[in-house]
C-alpha cells in the first residue's frame, strides 16, 4: 500500500555533510571446530536463516605440487581436481551430473597454488544425498582414460582461447619471472606441452600426494548443526586412512629481481595490458596488515592514489589497482591496468612516481584516518553470508593464522601510525626493481619503453 508523505523540509542546509552516528560493534562470528581421529579438521559455520547447506573440502596442497614432479608438470593438480567429478568407481560422469542437477544442487572442484577445493551446495533436505556424492567423488575417483582424454582436449582448447586475453598473457609472464625457480612460477592451468604429456600415472600420484585426511579441512556451512555435520562426516570418512607420504618441502623464497621489461604480442591490440611489480610477502607474514593497509592507500580501492591519478586526473584508463597477492609460502606485489598504446610509458612513469611517493613521504593524517574508516566499515560487509564467514574461517586454518586473527583485525588496523605505513612501503616496495610485463602492440611498445631497459619480446604463442 502506497501512502503519500506530505511534509517537506525547505530549509535544509545541504552545504555540509551530516555527522556520523556512533558506530556499532561487530564481532567476528564464532564457529565450531573439531578434529577427527584420522586427522580431518572440521569447521561448522551454522546459519539457519535459510534451508541451505554447503560443504567445502579444502586440501592443504595444490598446484605448487606440479613443480615437484620428476619433470615440472604445470596443469597436473588442476586437471586432477577437475577429473574428480568426472567419474568414480560407483558413478559415471554423466550419473554424477544427472544426480546433482536433479536435486537442484551444485558441485565443483579446482585448485590454487596452496590448496585444492571440492565443494557442494544444496537445499538442506537434499544435503545427505549430495554429501554422499561429494564423498564418493573425493574418495573413489576413477580417472578413466576416456575422461582424461576429454579433459585434456577441453583444457588445450581453453588454453588456446585464453591467449586472446591480454591480461592473462601479461599475468602469465609476470608470474613466471617473479617466481623464477620457485613452485609458484608455473601457470596453474598448465601449458600446451605439459597438458599434452600428463599421464594417468601422473594423475594417480598427484591424487595420492594431495588427498588424505590429515591434509583436509572440511567446512560445513549453513543450516546444519555440529552434531549433524560430524555424524555425516564420520559415516563417510571415518575409515579413510592417511597415505604416509612425506609432506613436500618448499625451497627458499626467491629473491627480488632487477628491473626488466617483457612484451607479449597481442594481435590487433588497441590497449596495453600492464602488470608490473616484484616479489612480496607470504600470507602469515607478521607485517601483512600494515602492508595491506599501505597498499589500500596506494592502489587497493577506488579513491586510492594510483586510480585517482591514472583515471580521475589523467583519464588514461577505466581503472587501475595494485595488490599484494599473498600465498602460503611467498607472494607478489603488482600494479595492473589497461591503457592506450601511446601512453603506456607515461602510465609507467606515473605508477613509479606514486610508488616512490608513498615510500618517501608520510601519508597525511586525514588519508590514514579515511582508509582506516574504509577498511573498518567494509569489514562487516564481508561477513553477510555464512559462506563468506566460512572463507575466512578456512583461511585461518589454511594459512595457519592465529585463532584471534579476525577478532583483533580491526584493532590492529586502527592502531597503525603514519610511520608504520611509511615503513611498510619502505621495506616492501621496490620501484627500482620492477618486472614490467605488458601484452599489446610489441612493435610500438619496444620503441616507447626503451628508457625502462631492453625488452624481452615474446610472440603470442607463449
Amino acid at each position, binding site marked *: 500500500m502506497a501512502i503519500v508523505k506530505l511534509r517537506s523540509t525547505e530549509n535544509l542546509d545541504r552545504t555540509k555533510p551530516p555527522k556520523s552516528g556512533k558506530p556499532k560493534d561487530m564481532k567476528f562470528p564464532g564457529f565450531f571446530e573439531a578434529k577427527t581421529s584420522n586427522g580431518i579438521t572440521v569447521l561448522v559455520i551454522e546459519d539457519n536463516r535459510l534451508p541451505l547447506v554447503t560443504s567445502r573440502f579444502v586440501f592443504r596442497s595444490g598446484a605448487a605440487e606440479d613443480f615437484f614432479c620428476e619433470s615440472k608438470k604445470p596443469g597436473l593438480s588442476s586437471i586432477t581436481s577437475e577429473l574428480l567429478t568426472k567419474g568414480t568407481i560407483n558413478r559415471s560422469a554423466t550419473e554424477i551430473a544427472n544426480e546433482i542437477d536433479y536435486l537442484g544442487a551444485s558441485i565443483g572442484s579446482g585448485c590454487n597454488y596452496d590448496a585444492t577445493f571440492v565443494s557442494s551446495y544444496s537445499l538442506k533436505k537434499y544435503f545427505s544425498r549430495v554429501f554422499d556424492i561429494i564423498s564418493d567423488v573425493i574418495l573413489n575417483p576413477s580417472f578413466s582414460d576416456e575422461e582424461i582424454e576429454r579433459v585434456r582436449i577441453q583444457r588445450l582448447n581453453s588454453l588456446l582461447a585464453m591467449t586472446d586475453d591480454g591480461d592473462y598473457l601479461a599475468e602469465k609472464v609476470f608470474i613466471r619471472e617473479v617466481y623464477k625457480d620457485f613452485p609458484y612460477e608455473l601457470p596453474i592451468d598448465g601449458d600446451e606441452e605439459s597438458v599434452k604429456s600428463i599421464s594417468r600415472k601422473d594423475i594417480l600420484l598427484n591424487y595420492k600426494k594431495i588427498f588424505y585426511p590429515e591434509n583436509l579441512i572440511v567446512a560445513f556451512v549453513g543450516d546444519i548443526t555440529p552434531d549433524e555435520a560430524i555424524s555425516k562426516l564420520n559415516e563417510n570418512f571415518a575409515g579413510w586412512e592417511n597415505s604416509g607420504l612425506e609432506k613436500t618441502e618448499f625451497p627458499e623464497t626467491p629473491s627480488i629481481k632487477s628491473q626488466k621489461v617483457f612484451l607479449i604480442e597481442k594481435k590487433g591490440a588497441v590497449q596495453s595490458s600492464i602488470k608490473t611489480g616484484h616479489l612480496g610477502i607470504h600470507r602469515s607474514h607478521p607485517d601483512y596488515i600494515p602492508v595491506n593497509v599501505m597498499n589500500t592507500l596506494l592502489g587497493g580501492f577506488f579513491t586510492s592514489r594510483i586510480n585517482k591519478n591514472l583515471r580521475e586526473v589523467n583519464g588514461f584508463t*577505466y581503472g587501475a589497482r595494485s595488490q599484494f597477492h599473498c600465498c602460503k609460502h611467498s607472494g607478489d606485489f603488482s600494479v595492473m591496468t*589497461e591503457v592506450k598504446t601511446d601512453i603506456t610509458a607515461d602510465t609507467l612513469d606515473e605508477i613509479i612516481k606514486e610508488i616512490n611517493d608513498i615510500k618517501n613521504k608520510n601519508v597525511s593524517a586525514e588519508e590514514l584516518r579515511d582508509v582506516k574508516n574504509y577498511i573498518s566499515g567494509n569489514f562487516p560487509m564481508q561477513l553477510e553470508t555464512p559462506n563468506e564467514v566460512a572463507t575466512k574461517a578456512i583461511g585461518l586454518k589454511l594459512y595457519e593464522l592465529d585463532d584471534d586473527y579476525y577478532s583483533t583485525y580491526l584493532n590492529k588496523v586502527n592502531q597503525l601510525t603514519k610511520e608504520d605505513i611509511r615503513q611498510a612501503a619502505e621495506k616492501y616496495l621496490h620501484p627500482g626493481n620492477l618486472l614490467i610485463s605488458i601484452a599489446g602492440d610489441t612493435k610500438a611498445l619496444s620503441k616507447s619503453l626503451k628508457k625502462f631497459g631492453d625488452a624481452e619480446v615474446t610472440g603470442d604463442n607463449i
Partner: protein
Amino acid sequence: MKKNKDYFYNAVKIDVENVLKHPIEFKEFTLSNGLHCILYKNNQLPVVNITLGYKVGSKDELPGKKGIAHLFEHLMFQGSKNVKKNEHFSYLMKSGGFCNAFTMQDSTIYFDNIPSNNIEIALWLESDRMNSLNLDEKNLENQKKVVIEEKKQRVDNSPYGSMLLNIFKYIFKGSGYESPIIGNVKDINSFTVSEAVKFHNDYYSPCNCVIVISGDINFENTEELLIKYFSGIRKKNQLNRKKNIIKKLRNSIDRTYYDNIQLPAVNLCYQLPKAGSKEEYTIEFITEILANNKSSRLYKNLVYKKKLLQSVNAVKYMLEDSGLFFLNALLNPGVSPENIKDEFLNALQEFADKGCTDEEFERIKNKLESKFTSRYLQIKNISLDAAQNYLYFRNVNRINEEINNYLSVTKNDIAESLNKYIISGKNITVTYLPKNS
C-alpha cells in the same frame, strides 16, 4: 558407499511452502514530489544498502547521442552543488562505505553499501546529486576519456567483446535496444555540458526515481531521513518519452564477424515478448533443459559425447519492452559453424516434437527452488530486485511472487512458447570466426 539408484527419480517433491516460509516484507510510501521509497529491515549486520533506480537507460537516447546515458552515470560521480569532484566516492569510502552504479537499457542503478551509523551521509550525497549537478568542461572531458577506455577494455580489446552488441543490433533493429549501452566514440565526444544539464533535468527527478533502503534500519528514523533529504527536491521531469517500438523480425539473417580470437563462436537468436510475460517463465525451462549445466541436452550431446564444443550456453535476456533468447556455442578448432547451427535447430525441433521428460521438468523446478532460496541472503539483491520490480511493474511484492510464477509453468505452457516464438519465429545467426581463417 553404495550407489542407490532407486531413490533417484521418484522421491523429490517441490515444497513451495518451504521457499516462501519467510516472505520478504517491505514498507512503501511516496513523497509529495513523487519519489517512491521502499524500506526493508534486516538488522543482522550493522550495514545498509541504498539503491536508487532512475527510469532512464540507453533506450531513451536520441540519434547521434548513443552512449550518453552511461556517460551521464559517470558524471553523477563528478560533483554536485555541495560535493566537489571526487568527493562523492571519497565521502562514501571514508564513511566505511562503498558505492557504484550501472547503466542498462531500461534504467540506471546507483547503490551505496554503508555502515548503518553513516546512512545519513549517503542520503545527503544521493539527494545532492539528484537535486543539482555541478559539471564543468574539464570533468566532462576527463570522463569521456575514461568511458572510451572502458569501451576499449570491455568491447574492442576483449575477445568476443562485441558479440552481444551485434546480437542486439539485429534482433532489436529500429528500436531503442538497437544501440549498445556503451555507445560510440563520436557520439560520446559530442556530448556537451549543457546537454548533460538537460539530461539531468529531464530524467533525474524524484518522480522518475525509486529509492530502496535495506538492512540495519528502523522504519521511523529512516522515513524521517528520507523526508529530510529528498522531500525538498522540487524538480519535475517534463519529458515526452518516445515510445520504444519493437519490430518483429521479418526474415532470418546470418551475419559473420572476424575477430582476434582462436575459437569460432555461433549464436542462434530469437526475439521474445517482454519481461513479465508468460515467456519469462517458460523460456527459463527451455534454457536449462538445453544448456547451462552438465545434464542438459546440448552439453551432453555436443560437448561431452561428440566433443564438438568447448562450451554451450542458453541465454534468456528480459527487457522492459521485449526479450531475447539465444543459444551460444564456443567451437573446438576445425568444427564447422554451419554444423553447429544445424545441431541447434535440430535440438529445438526435437524439443518441439517430443517435449521434455518428467525428469527434466522436475530437475528445473528443483534448481529454481534452490536458486530463489539463496538469492535473498544478501540485502543488495533484495534492494536491486525491489527497485526493478517497482520501476517496470509497480509491484515490489513480485519478489515473493516470482517463484510461484516459475513453479506453476506446465509442460504445455513450455510447448506453446517454444512453438510460438522459436519454432515459428525468425532467427538471427551471429557467427564469430578467427581473423586468420
